[in-house]
């Protein structure tokens, strides 16, 4: 849904913007880094940046766009600064309850851990596509990469995730 455009006046309600967008910012970072404490720190930094640049914000919709863009940038920066990327050995991934069971309560966590093992760019593409429901063009604009690259990352990442899950017996082909 495209939001109604409202003008954000100088001295606008920063607290309201934070309430509206805190889940989005935190979740982008958390699902990218799969580290709750770090995600909280980075999300806090993102909002402090917003606070410093409030005058640059043109509208409520612009605030959302700006926050998402900065959350993406800070997440990728944090990932690069890490000494070690979060490597999850497949043996450490929780075993599914049983083959063929339609609702696997561990599947969500399994998927989140597998996503954390993807390289940075496809990992962020997956987060933006399935958490934020952005289309490839929007993702390309946000990440400043070609649309064709986004589509290619989506295709390959889905294939990889699907293959890993099938091999783990989570789903039958």
């Amino acid at each position: 849904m495209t939001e109604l455009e409202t003008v954000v006046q100088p001295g606008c309600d920063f607290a309201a913007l934070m309430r509206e967008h805190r889940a989005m910012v935190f979740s982008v970072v958390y699902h990218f880094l799969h580290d709750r404490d770090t995600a909280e720190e980075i999300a806090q930094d993102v909002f402090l940046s917003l606070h410093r640049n409030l005058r640059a914000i043109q509208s409520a919709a612009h605030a959302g766009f700006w926050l998402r863009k900065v959350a993406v940038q800070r997440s990728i920066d944090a990932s690069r600064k890490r000494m070690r990327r979060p490597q999850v050995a497949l043996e450490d991934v929780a075993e599914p309850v049983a083959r063929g069971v339609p609702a696997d309560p561990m599947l969500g966590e399994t998927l989140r851990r597998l996503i954390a093992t993807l390289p940075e760019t496809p990992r962020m593409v997956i987060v933006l596509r399935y958490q934020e429901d952005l289309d490839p063009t929007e993702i390309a604009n946000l990440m400043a990469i070609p649309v064709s690259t986004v589509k290619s990352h989506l295709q390959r990442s889905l294939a990889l995730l699907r293959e890993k899950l099938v091999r783990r017996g989570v789903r039958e082909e």
Partner: protein
Amino acid sequence: MDWLEDELRQALRRKDPSPDFEARVMAAARRRPVLTMPRWLAAAAALLVITSAGLGYRYHRGQAAKAQVMTAMRLTGSKLSRIQMQIKAARP
């Protein structure tokens, strides 16, 4: 819809940060230090942020407006198409 995409949407649903998140951010915002960099550098940095954010935002608005136009034309087209089919069905 593909089962994996469904599961991904479930797994990547938005989550809230800790309950005291807002309080911590507000406290940090009140404590933030005054910039000590030269005024011209701060102004140049601010201009760069505003310009790049503005350009990206213009593109975002343009894509949103384009999507609305296409939705409008598809909807209008589908109604007219249905009218045409009804006309054809009504005529001998």
